């Protein structure tokens, strides 16, 4: 399990000379001359470990959080551990309008950090709704014109 901050984790991985595909994409997103507005990585093997690293990196980049409008990470294995890091990133997104998390292995989501700009959320094929309060929080955070599937 990884509990240290993102900076330390990145250094640790750099020392191991391990290059992660998704992390590389996220690194590009943080350094791109033109801000990334859409990132869809569907059917990948992103796991909790790479998810935590990558989302922590994205959360630190204002270039990403101010411009990303669409994020789709469906059919991966982010899990709740990765989702915690994702939630931190999402809470900082300012214009994110579309979020798709089909079948990402989450079951006790931290939804309170959803950005108010979110208009479209898809999170089916997860074991959501184990506690009714989670669903209530989802609806509270979505605008009236939002869609939820």
């Amino acid at each position, binding site marked *: 399990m990884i509990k240290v901050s993102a900076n330390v984790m990145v250094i640790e991985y750099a020392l*191991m*000379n*391990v*290059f*992660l*595909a*998704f*992390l*590389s*994409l996220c*690194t*590009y997103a943080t*350094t*791109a*001359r*033109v*801000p*990334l*507005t*859409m*990132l*869809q*990585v*569907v*059917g*990948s*093997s*992103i*796991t909790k*470990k*790479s998810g935590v690293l990558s989302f922590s990196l994205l959360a630190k980049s204002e270039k990403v959080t101010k411009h990303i409008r669409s994020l*789709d990470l469906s059919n991966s294995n982010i899990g709740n551990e990765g989702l915690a890091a994702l939630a931190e990133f999402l809470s900082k997104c300012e214009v994110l309008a579309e979020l798709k998390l089909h079948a990402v292995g989450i079951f006790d989501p931290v939804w309170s950090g959803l950005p108010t700009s979110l208009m479209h959320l898809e999170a089916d094929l997860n074991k959501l709704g184990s506690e009714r309060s989670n669903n209530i929080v989802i609806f509270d955070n979505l605008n009236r014109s939002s869609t939820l599937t």
Partner: protein
Amino acid sequence: MIDALHYNTWFTHLSISDIRLPNEASASLVALARRTRCLSHIELNNLNLGKDFYCQFAEAASQNPLSVLSEIVFKSCASIDDKGKR
């Protein structure tokens, strides 16, 4: 065709789906990411690309100071994982 995009400045979107790309084509995509000045949207769907491709593509795009790539769609990309390469 991908090689032609290295020099063509008209097309801004590239979408490739459901074919098995030869190594030369995937290498050309990496080279395209390294030098393109006008490609803003790329969609690669079910191409059975090797696990090194996505790393190389992202690194190539990072090294391109003129890149305007702002929309990335990778689908059925099981080789994006956290095993990486050493």
